[in-house]
C-alpha cells in the first residue's frame, strides 16, 4: 500500500528486478525432446500423387481445386515414414514398423500399382485414382514381424522390399517387370495379384524400378533384372523381355556392386571400389564414353577419371554421380545444371561446389546424396539443405516458380531434409524438424 502523500511514478529498478525474478518460467519443450519426422510433398497434384484430397476435390464448393503445388506442403502421416518412392503419377510411402500396415500408396492406380483399393461405392471394383495415403495389403506370412526396408516405383509397377520375405511386386506386367510370366490380355486394373519373389543368390538389399524394368541388388553384390529389354536395360545380353529375375554378367561379373540406379531406360551401378558401370539406353550420350551404339545390353565399365564414386543417380536423359569428396558430376542431355549453355556432354562435368553453399565462410559443406527424376536432379547437402535443378515440369522442382532451373537452387523446407524421392512431375521429401 503506498502512502497517500507519495506520487505514483515508474517502478524503481529494484521493483522491476524483483518482478522479473518472480515471473513464472514457461517450458515449451523438455531436455529430452525428440526431433519430429515429417513428409513434405510438392508438384502436380491432380493425379492424387501428393496425397492431399482437398487439392483434387476441395472441401467447400466455392474453393477451386489446386492443380499444382509449387512449394513444399506438409503431408500428415500416421506413422514415421522411412522410405518413399515416386512413380509416374503415383507415390508409395513405407514405414519400417512392425504393425500390420506398413506401406501406403496414393495417385494413379489404373494398373493396380498400388494394389487393390476396394471402392466404397462398389465393393467389387477398385479405385482408379487414390487421393490420400491408403494402406496397401501385402500378403505377408508373418505380418507382425517382417519389416519393409525400401519401396520403388516405375511407370506402372511398384516393388516393395522386406527384410525376411523377399520382394513383393505389383502393377503392370506386360513386359514381365513384376518378375512373373506375362499373361496375354491380362487386365491389370482392379487386380488383387501381388507377386512375391524369393529366388536370389542372397538377400536382396536394394530394389530399383526403371520405366518398364526392375533391378534387384543382392547382399553378395550381384544384380538381377527383369522386364522390358528393347533398349538393353535388362543388361542380359539380348533385347527381349525377361519375366524372371536373371543375374547380370558382363563387366560386373564378380564385382561387388554397392548401389544401382535407374529411372528411365538407362541403368548405372557403382562398385565398392568406386567404379561406374552402365547399360541400357545411350541415345543421349549417357554411355557414349565407351561405345557409339545407342543401346547397350551388357553392363560396361565407364572409365571416368573423376575419383572414387560413392553414389549414382540415373534420370531419363541425364545422369549424375557423387564422388567421395562430395562433388557432383553430371553428363547426358538436357538441363544438366551448369547454365543454359551446357546441353549435352558425354564426359562427366563437375558442378562447382560454390553453387551448393560452399564458400570460405563455410568450407565444410559437402553434398551427401544425389537423386534423379525423369528430367530433374536433386542434391542433399550434409547440412540438410535440398538443391534442385532441371526441367520444372508442372512445378515439380518446388522452387515456387514455374520456370526451368539451369543451376542448383535451394528449396526452402522447414526442417532438415533427410531423403528425397523424385518422380516425373512431383517430389516427396522426408524431413526432420530442427528441434
Amino acid at each position, binding site marked *: 500500500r503506498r502512502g497517500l502523500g507519495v506520487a505514483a511514478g515508474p517502478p524503481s529498478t529494484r521493483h522491476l528486478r524483483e518482478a522479473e525474478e518472480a*515471473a513464472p518460467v514457461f517450458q*515449451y519443450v523438455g531436455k529430452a525432446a525428440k526431433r519430429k519426422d515429417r513428409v513434405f510433398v510438392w508438384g502436380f497434384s491432380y493425379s492424387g500423387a501428393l496425397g492431399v484430397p482437398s487439392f483434387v476435390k476441395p472441401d467447400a464448393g466455392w474453393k477451386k481445386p489446386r492443380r499444382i503445388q509449387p512449394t513444399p506442403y506438409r503431408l500428415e502421416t500416421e506413422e514415421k515414414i522411412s522410405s518413399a518412392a515416386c512413380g509416374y503419377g503415383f507415390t508409395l510411402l513405407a514405414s519400417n514398423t512392425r504393425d500390420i500396415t506398413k506401406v501406403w500408396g496414393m495417385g494413379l492406380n489404373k494398373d493396380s500399382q498400388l494394389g487393390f483399393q476396394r471402392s466404397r461405392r462398389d465393393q467389387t471394383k477398385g479405385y482408379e485414382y487414390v487421393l490420400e495415403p491408403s494402406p496397401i495389403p501385402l500378403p505377408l506370412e508373418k505380418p507382425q514381424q517382417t519389416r519393409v526396408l525400401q519401396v520403388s516405383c516405375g511407370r506402372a509397377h511398384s516393388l516393395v522390399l522386406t527384410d525376411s520375405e523377399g520382394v513383393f511386386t505389383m502393377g503392370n506386367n506386360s513386359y514381365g517387370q513384376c518378375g512373373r510370366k506375362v499373361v496375354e490380355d491380362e487386365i491389370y486394373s482392379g487386380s488383387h495379384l501381388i507377386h512375391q519373389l524369393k529366388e536370389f543368390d542372397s538377400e536382396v538389399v536394394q530394389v530399383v524400378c526403371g520405366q518398364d524394368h526392375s533391378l534387384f541388388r543382392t547382399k553378395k553384390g550381384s544384380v538381377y533384372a527383369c522386364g522390358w529389354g528393347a533398349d538393353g536395360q535388362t543388361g542380359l545380353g539380348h533385347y527381349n523381355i525377361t519375366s524372371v529375375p536373371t543375374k547380370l554378367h558382363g563387366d560386373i561379373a564378380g564385382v561387388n556392386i554397392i548401389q544401382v540406379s535407374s529411372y528411365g531406360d538407362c541403368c548405372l551401378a557403382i562398385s565398392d571400389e568406386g567404379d561406374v558401370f552402365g547399360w541400357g539406353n545411350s541415345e543421349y550420350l549417357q554411355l557414349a564414353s565407351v561405345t557409339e551404339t545407342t543401346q547397350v545390353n551388357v553392363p560396361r565399365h565407364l572409365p571416368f577419371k573423376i575419383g572414387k564414386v560413392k553414389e549414382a543417380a540415373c534420370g531419363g536423359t541425364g545422369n549424375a554421380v557423387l564422388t567421395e569428396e562430395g562433388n557432383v558430376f553430371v553428363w547426358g542431355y538436357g538441363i544438366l545444371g*551448369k*547454365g543454359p549453355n551446357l546441353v549435352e556432354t558425354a564426359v562427366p562435368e563437375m558442378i562447382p561446389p560454390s553453387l551448393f553453399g560452399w564458400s570460405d*565462410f563455410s568450407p565444410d559443406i559437402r553434398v551427401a546424396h544425389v537423386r534423379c527424376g525423369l528430367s530433374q536432379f536433386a542434391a542433399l547437402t550434409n*547440412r540438410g539443405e535440398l538443391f534442385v535443378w532441371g526441367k520444372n515440369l508442372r512445378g515439380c522442382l518446388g522452387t515456387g516458380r514455374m520456370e526451368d532451373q539451369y543451376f542448383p*537452387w535451394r528449396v526452402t523446407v522447414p526442417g532438415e531434409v533427410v531423403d528425397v524421392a523424385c518422380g516425373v512431375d512431383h517430389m516427396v521429401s522426408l524431413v526432420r524438424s*530442427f*528441434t
Partner: protein
Amino acid sequence: LNAAPGRAPRQRVRFLPAPAPGGGGAVELVAARVPVLADHPLVRGPRFKKLKIGAGHRLDVKASGVFVLGVGHGNKLLTDLYNCHLTKVYIVGGLFGKATDDFSDTGNLVEKTTFDHITREKLERILAVIQGTNQKALLMYSNIDMKTQEAYELAVKGLIRPMGKCPPIITAVRCLQFALPEFQLEIHCLHETQQYLRKMVHEIGLELKSSAVCTQVRRTRDGVFTVDDALPRTQWNLQGIQEAIRNCQLKVETELERTLG
C-alpha cells in the same frame, strides 16, 4: 586546423613604378610578381568557419562499433559508397531464457522460458537455414534473369549482389561462442538496421522453442572500414583524423573503382 599553414597566396604580375636608374624624378614601370592582396590572411579571415560532416550507415543508440563519417568532399564519396552495397559485419551477443518487448535486455519482460534443451548443434542448424533463405533472397533481389549463362557464372563466383533497393539480407551467419545461456554470433548483412538484428535474435529463440534477447550489437566492419581503421575516443583530434583519412583514401578509391567502374 585554421592555424595550419594554408594555401600560399596567389601571385600576380603587376607593373610597379620604380625610380629610373637615371636621375631623380623620372618613373619607370618594372614588372614584378606581387601577392594578390585579396588572398592576404587578414583580408580573408580564418579558412574554415564551418565543416560539413556527413554520416554513413546509421548506428543505434544501444549499439556500438564502426561509424563512418565524411568530411567536406568526403560526403560525395559517402553516396558512392552507399551505392556500392557492401556488406557490414556485426558481432551480436544474445541471452536465452527471456523475451522482452523491444528484443533487448533493457526492455519490459514479456516471458521467461527454459533453455537447457538448446545445444550448439541445434543453433547451428537454425543458422544454416537462415543463411539458406537469405541466399535465395539475395539471388532473387539482384534482378538478374536466372536463365542466362551470365547469371550462372556470377552465381558460381558468388558475385551476385542486389544493386538496388531491397529488404535486409543476411549473407552469412556464424556462431562464435556458445555458453548457455549466452551466445555470440557474427553476422554479415546488407541494408539492415540494428533493431532488425535484435528481432532476428528473438526469432532464433522462438525457433529453438525458447526465447532470446539481444544483449550486445557491435559493428566490426562497414564496407571497407574495419575496427583497425576506426579512431577510439582518445584519438578524436586533428592529427588522428587526418591520419585516418590518409590511410583509408586508397582503400576507398580502389573499392569504388572496382564496383562502380
